[in-house]
Every structure is written in structure tokens, then in C-alpha cells.
């Protein structure tokens, strides 16, 4: 029996006092996005591109609020330049990223970014935590939020594609 990891992440966000959740939709994040949208203590902000999330996070922290970003691995490629601001200003940043281009991938166009997601993040000084199975996802998110806000740093949790378990376009549409 797989744990209900989206609900566990949501509980971590609530416990940490996260009030702003920026996201670009991903099938793997569908349930977590819905949990955040229906949480009256959270503002779920749909973004046109992941890059906007970096501005959102910076602004929320300037205003005294904690936030997280939800995206899929392809979106990491849209962040590179603006992650420079996170580094020079030492803004706390937590990104929860569902992986594509891994085990079970059906779309070859997802592979180049998926294979380089961790490398791109680390190149821009974002610490990467790999959640390889459903049992460890919430613990990684807990650690990432703690480190981001206690040490003023950038943290990413990568949720492996096998945790999400989508293997075809049809499955994705049925999600």
C-alpha cells in the first residue's frame, strides 16, 4: 500500500506555515494542487511559466510569508537566470518537482531536461533531494522547508517518476 504522499506533503506545508503556493500544473502534482487550492489558509497561484514562481517567492518573503513552488522537471529549464537572484539575495526557496524523462517515460521530448534536472539545479546552487519512493517524499519536503528557511537557501525535492507512475498519455489524461 503506497502512502498518500500528496496529502503528506500538504500536511508538511500546513505545519511549516506555508501560505503561498505557486504552480505550473503537472499531472503528478494534480492532487497536491487541489489540496492547496481548497485550503483556506493558502493562496494557490497558477503561473504562466515556472520563472514567475521565483519572483512570487521572493516577493512573498519580502512581505514576510513562506511559500513553495510546484512544477515538473521540464520547468526547471525555465528558471536558470532568475535563480541568480535567489542566490545573491539568499532568498529561501523550496521547489517540489515531479520528474519526467525517467523510468516509464513515453515522450522522448521530456528526456533531455529530465536527465539534467538535478545538474541544472545544482549548477545554480540549489540543493537537490531525491525522493525515490513514496515513503520518503514527505520527509524530504520537511527537510527542504526546514533548511530553506533556517539557512536562507534554495532547496529542491525531486519526486521520481516511478512514484507518480504515469506511463502513457492516456494515463496522464485519466489522472
Amino acid at each position, binding site marked *: 500500500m503506497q502512502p498518500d504522499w500528496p496529502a503528506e506533503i500538504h500536511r508538511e506545508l500546513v505545519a511549516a506555515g506555508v501560505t*503561498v503556493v505557486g504552480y505550473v500544473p503537472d499531472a503528478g502534482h494534480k492532487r497536491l494542487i487541489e489540496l492547496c487550492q481548497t485550503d483556506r489558509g493558502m493562496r494557490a497561484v497558477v503561473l504562466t511559466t515556472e520563472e*514567475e514562481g521565483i519572483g*512570487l517567492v521572493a516577493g512573498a518573503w519580502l512581505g*514576510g510569508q513562506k511559500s513553495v513552488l510546484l512544477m515538473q522537471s521540464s520547468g526547471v529549464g525555465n528558471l536558470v537566470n532568475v535563480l541568480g537572484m535567489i542566490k545573491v539575495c539568499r532568498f529561501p526557496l523550496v521547489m517540489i518537482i515531479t520528474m519526467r524523462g525517467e523510468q516509464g517515460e513515453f515522450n522522448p521530448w521530456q528526456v533531455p531536461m529530465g536527465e539534467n534536472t538535478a545538474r541544472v539545479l545544482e549548477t545554480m546552487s540549489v540543493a537537490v533531494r531525491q525522493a525515490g519512493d513514496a515513503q520518503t517524499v514527505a520527509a524530504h519536503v520537511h527537510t527542504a522547508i526546514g533548511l530553506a528557511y*533556517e539557512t536562507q537557501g534554495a532547496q529542491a525535492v525531486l519526486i521520481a517518476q516511478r512514484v507518480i507512475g504515469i506511463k502513457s498519455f492516456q494515463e496522464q489524461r485519466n489522472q
Partner: protein
Amino acid sequence: MKLRRREVVKELLEKRGELLVVAGLGSTAWDITAAGDAPLSFPLWGAMGQAAMIGLGIALAQPKRRVLVVTGDGEMLMGLGSLATIGVQQPANLTVVVIDNERYGETGMQRTHTADGVDLAAVATACKFKHAITATADVAPVRELVYRAAGPNFAAVKVADEKLPLVLPPHDGVLLKARFRRALLGDSADVLPEER
């Protein structure tokens, strides 16, 4: 006689009170500094395209404070999607003012899209901003949006394409962040909420 950017920004920031200000990289960061550097100003030195989103983040975190983003036409064009994102969130306390000289001022005064007629205020209107105007002669209506009108508000202010002396704000990002948070949140800005 075209409006002059430094005079426009100075007029917008006069008696700014509790206004929270974000300025896009380049000329608008120099403009707000020429008007008087202040802790509750966050001038950007990079992250081109993100000024409006930083303003949205502040506006959502501080719904009782008014927030002004002042940025250039080139910077706004790089983040046009953020106008759609702001339109969805409808922050009543946010105004985005584009100081539009129709040029990329820091890189050799190349023409931007607005020089060929791209209408940023029309984009803002299409993105559900409550008010969106283009100002060419008078700054008073823009001040009205910044300080009084329920937002989200947008103004494009057409200005002369002049090259002005640089007036640089502090460039240490940690300093800019920390001073803004202290000025807004008090000493508690330096400790985590659970430690307050």
C-alpha cells in the same frame, strides 16, 4: 513636450508614506534611487522580467499595504505572462507602472516592441486589470492609481528616450532584502516566526 522619467518617478514617490516599491533592473532602479533611496524600496539588478511578480508576491503577503512596481518597457515585455497571472489573482493593492521610453536603455537604446505600437495597457486590460491607462502628459492619474484606486492597476507612462547619469542603489542583494524586511516587519524579520 514629452514627460521625463526622473521627474515622473519623483512625482510618483513624493510623500510615499507606507508604499512598498519594487523597481525593475536598469533605468527604473536608477530612477527610484534618484528620487531617494529607501529601505522599503527593492531595486533589482537582475532577474529581468520578474519585477511585476515580485510585486504580486509582496501584495499577497501584505494585503493591507499598497505596492508599486515601477519598471521599464523592456523588462515588462520579458514578463508579459505575469500580467495574466496578476489578473487571475486580482490583488487590490498592486499597481504596475511601466516607464515606457520605447527603448532598451542599458544596451544601446535599441527600439523595443512598444516603439512599433505594442500596447501594454491594452494587454493589461485584456488580463483583467481593474484600471489600465497610458499617460503621456499628466502624472496625476497615475498617482491616483498608485495611492487610491482599487487594483490591480496598470499604467504605461510614455517618456523621452534620454540617457541620464546613473544613480545607483546598494547592489548587495542580501542587504536589500534584509533592510526591506526589517523596515516592513520590524526586528522580528531576522528570526523565524516560530522563534518570535
